[in-house]
């Protein structure tokens, strides 16, 4: 009986402690993407492979180029960071972890000018795409993915 107890108790303890351990630090990729229609499109960067189909169908462009990006490991869920290109800046301010994601405050700047602000609950399994301003013949897109 003592032997079986010695097996059962550690198994239960491990089962109980496994769930919190799975909530490890996660990486959020945020990118500034220029979507264009070109005759010979370049392959999409690896960060966008997962949503390339969605981008093509939804926005109607065939090429997606990253002009600025940032990868941030969220440990506390309270971090903030900046993804920038030459003229644009995306400021991301994490405001806590929720069940299955993070609450983020996003601000898109054109140089020092605030174009757009939004607050979102970014799911770990659901990317966010924001349609930005028209840039030349293409479109600025903001993409956030929990990797």
């Amino acid at each position, binding site marked *: *009986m*003592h032997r079986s*107890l010695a097996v*059962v*108790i550690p198994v*239960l303890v491990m*089962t*109980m402690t496994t769930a919190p351990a799975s909530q490890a630090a996660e990486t959020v990729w945020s990118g500034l993407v*220029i979507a264009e229609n070109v005759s010979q499109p370049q392959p999409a960067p690896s960060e966008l492979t997962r*949503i390339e*189909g*969605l981008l093509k169908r*939804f926005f109607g462009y065939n090429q997606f*180029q990253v*002009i*600025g990006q940032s990868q941030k490991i969220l440990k506390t869920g309270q971090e903030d960071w900046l993804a920038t*290109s*030459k*003229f*644009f800046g995306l400021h991301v301010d994490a405001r806590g972890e*929720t*069940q*299955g*994601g993070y*609450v983020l405050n996003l601000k898109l700047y*054109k140089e020092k*000018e*605030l*174009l*757009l*602000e*939004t*607050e*979102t*609950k*970014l*799911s770990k*399994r*659901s*990317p*966010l*795409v*924001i*349609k*930005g*301003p*028209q*840039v*030349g*013949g*293409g479109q*600025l897109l903001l993409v956030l993915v929990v990797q």
Partner: protein
Amino acid sequence: MKAFEEKWTAWLDDQLSGRELSEFEASLPDKAAAQAEKADAKKLSELLKRELTAYPLKNEEFFSHQLREKIVQESGEEARERARRSPTSSWWTIPRLLWAGTASLAVFLICTVLVVRQERPAEESQYLTQILNARVDPVVSPNATVSIFEVKQDHATVLWTEGLQSLPADYAAK
């Protein structure tokens, strides 16, 4: 000096002897009747001695059964009393406590798993990224509008802005 009745009783029991016996028998008015009465008394005495012996116990098995039950009952009461007085003799032994704790923990885990599974449908609604609010600077883009699309097919959310100020191609620079 003994009364007549005492002497009579002693004479019937052959307790008189010698001079006392001869004097008493001489004082009897009818010695033959007295001897007959003495003989009857002896017969009666023998009859009583024979008939009034201890009555043998015929239901000895029933009696011993009752006796055993009484002994067992008293032994049980004593054992219970000892158990009540002794703090160490309890049903809650250490192994039993451990098992009870483990079983409670297992029941708790099972309940937790069931509750979590039942909450899964609610989680599905939070599966997609949610836009809590969105605002476009009205000074820079006074006619801009914002729409939200949840693309369940791709498990993605799109924040669609319309009417933002268009920018020249130079702004696409890295």
